């Protein structure tokens, strides 16, 4: 089920490179189509007929979780890839249509986050795309955590 953007509850994101998406060839139009879907939650218009994309259900990060992530990145001197993966694990609550893989949660230093197994599965099955998924979704989680309200007059 696709869930609309929310400041309170979980929302759905789809990786821009998901083969189930039909995106415009023009890079500017492609970027706009993806921004629109992320803003309105209307992914249906981008999904090809009889296609089922992998969907990622994420939570808006509480301020304390985001602070913990920033502190951990600094303390542990994490690489960009590690930082993205950790941020995605903090927000990720469910993955659908990704084989038999499921998100399992555990607690670490008072934070509830997905176990590394789901990131390993993305890397293992997605190849280079797996890393792109983590980078793209992690980036979107960061943007929403850093500036949840993006004014559009």
């Amino acid at each position: 089920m696709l869930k609309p953007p929310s400041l309170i509850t979980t929302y759905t994101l789809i990786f821009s490179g998901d083969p189930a998406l039909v995106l415009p060839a023009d890079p500017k139009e492609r970027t706009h189509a993806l921004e629109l879907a992320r803003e309105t939650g209307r992914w249906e218009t981008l999904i090809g007929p009889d296609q089922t994309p992998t969907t990622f259900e994420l939570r808006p990060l509480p301020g304390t979780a985001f602070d913990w992530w920033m502190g951990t990145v600094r303390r542990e001197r994490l690489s960009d890839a590690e930082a993205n993966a950790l941020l995605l694990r903090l927000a990720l609550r469910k993955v659908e249509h990704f084989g038999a893989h499921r998100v399992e949660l555990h607690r670490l230093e008072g934070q509830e986050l997905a176990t590394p197994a789901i990131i390993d599965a993305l890397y293992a099955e997605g190849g280079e795309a797996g890393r792109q998924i983590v980078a793209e979704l992690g980036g979107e989680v960061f943007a929403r955590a850093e500036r949840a309200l993006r004014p559009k007059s």
Partner: protein
Amino acid sequence: MLSDCERCMNELTTERRYVLGCGYLPPAPPQLAPFVRPWQGLGYNGPRPTTCPGYTTQLPVVIELVRAHRHWAKGQLEAFCGTRAVPEAVLLGVEQFESAVGDFEAWRLTPSSRGGGAEG
């Protein structure tokens, strides 16, 4: 039309939608950009809007904040959010919306002779 995006997209030309600041379209091409004039409410004198309010007012996050505002007004924001730790962004959004409601009420009660929306 303003509150019915589907109808608007079906009935208006793309050029007209650009001029109205349709949020479903990419930024207007340079030849149309100077003519983009989204609708703005009576009495509004803030910065010129860049996007049609028909689009912005139907965004899920905006609808969520308007709902949150209604619950906040009844002291039920925590119950609405399902947590005692109401997200900071929700509080900020509710504050901004409450401020806008205040501005509107002030305009509504001001006589038209002084630039408001009331008679007189």
